[in-house]
C-alpha cells in the first residue's frame, strides 16, 4: 500500500490557499525546534517559528518561507495555518534587506520591551527571506 506513505498537507494563509498536496514528508520549524513529519504521526498541535518549510514528494523537495502561524498534525493530514508565507521566487530581496536594517536599528535603540520583541521577530523574518532568497535567486 504505497498510499500509506503519503499524507495530505494544506497550507492556508489569509489571502490564498498556499499549498495543497499529498506528500511523503514535511520538515518544519516550530518554536520547540525543527520537526519532520511522516504519515501516521501522533496528533500534535504546535506553533510555527520563522523558518524554511520543506515539502518532500517523490524524493524532490520544495521549499518555502513560513513566518508565523500554527499547525495541527493528524495521522492522515496536516493543516498549517500561516499568517504569512512565500515561495522563494516571491521574495523581494530589496525589501527584505531594508527590513533587516530597520529591525537592527530598532534593536540597537532602547525602546519598550514589546517593541523589542517585535523588532526581533521582524529581524528573524528578514533574515529568513534573505537566506532563502539568496539560495534561489543566484
Amino acid at each position, binding site marked *: 500500500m504505497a498510499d500509506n506513505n503519503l499524507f495530505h498537507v494544506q497550507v492556508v494563509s489569509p489571502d490564498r490557499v498556499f499549498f495543497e498536496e499529498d506528500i511523503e514528508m514535511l520538515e518544519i520549524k516550530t518554536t*520547540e525546534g525543527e520537526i519532520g513529519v511522516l504519515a501516521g504521526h501522533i*496528533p500534535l*498541535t504546535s506553533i510555527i517559528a520563522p523558518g524554511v518549510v520543506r515539502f518532500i514528494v517523490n524524493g524532490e523537495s520544495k521549499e518555502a518561507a513560513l513566518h508565523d502561524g500554527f499547525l495541527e498534525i493528524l495521522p492522515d493530514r496536516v493543516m498549517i495555518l500561516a499568517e*504569512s508565507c512565500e515561495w522563494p521566487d516571491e521574495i523581494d530581496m530589496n525589501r527584505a534587506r531594508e527590513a533587516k536594517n530597520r529591525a537592527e536599528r530598532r534593536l540597537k535603540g532602547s525602546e519598550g520591551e514589546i517593541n523589542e520583541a517585535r523588532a526581533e521577530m521582524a529581524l528573524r523574518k528578514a533574515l529568513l527571506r534573505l537566506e532563502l532568497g539568496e539560495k534561489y535567486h543566484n
Partner: protein
Amino acid sequence: MASMREIKRRKATIESTGQITQAMKLVSTAKLQRAKGKVESSKPYFSHMYDAVNSILAKSGNISHPYLQAAQGGKKAFIVVTSNRGLAGGYNNNVVKLLTKGNIPKEDILVYAVGRKGRDTLKRYGYEIKEDYSDVMNGPMFSDAAQIGRAVLEAFANQEVSEIYIAYTVFKNTITQIPTLMRLLPVEIKEEETKNSNADLAIMNYEPEAEEALDMIIPKYVNSLIYGALTEAVASENGARMQAMDSASNNAEEMIADLALKYNRARQASITQELTEIVAGASAIE
C-alpha cells in the same frame, strides 16, 4: 397646477440626481466584484481556522484557560464594523441597531469603531468610543486586523473587558447581507461539533504545553475572525450601496415619467388657455 417652468426645473434636478445614483451604482458594482474576490480568497483561512480551533478545543478536553472562561462582570468590548461613507441604504444603521437594540446596557460597552458612520452614530447615542480604526475600511489588510486584535486582547488580558464581540455584516450574496453579532472571546464551542469530533477521539498533544500553545493560537484565531469580518463587511457595504443606488435610480426614473406627464398636461392647458384668450379677444373687437 404648478407652472411649466417649475416642473421643468424639478425634472432637470431629478435627472441629474438620477445620473449620480446611476454612476454610483456602477462604481459599487465594480468595487463589489473586487471585494467578493477578496472574501472568497480569504474564506478558506477563515473557515479552516474556525474548524481547527474547534477541533483542538474539542479534543483537548477540559483545559482551563483565561481565553476560554467567561469572566464575571466587567465591560464588554464591541468591534463595530461599518462604512466610512453613507448612501448605502440601511447598511450602517442595521449594524448600529445590533448594539442599541441589544440587551447589553450602554454603560457596559466599549466601542472599537471601524468605519466613520458607525462611530459617529454611536457617539451621538452616548456610547464610549475606545478606539477608532476607520481608515482601515479603505482597504483592510491582515496586518490591520492584527492591530485591532492586539488592542482588544490587551484590554482582555488587563481585565478591562470580560468579553469581546464583533458586530459586522455577513456577506451572503449580492442581494442578502445579514447584520451579525459574534462573540470572539471567550471562545464558544458549538455543542454539535463537540459531539461529532468525539467519534474520532484522539487525544491532542501540544508542543509547547497546551496552555502556552493556546496563548498563541487564540490571538491568531481572533485576528483571523476580525480579518474575515472586515473583508465581508467591505463586500456587504458595496452590495448594500449597489442595491440602494439601484432603487434610487428606479425611483428617479419613475418620478421623471410622472413629471413629464404633468409637464405635457400643463403645456397643453396653457396652449388651450392662450387660444381661448385669442378667440375671446378677437370676438370682443368685432
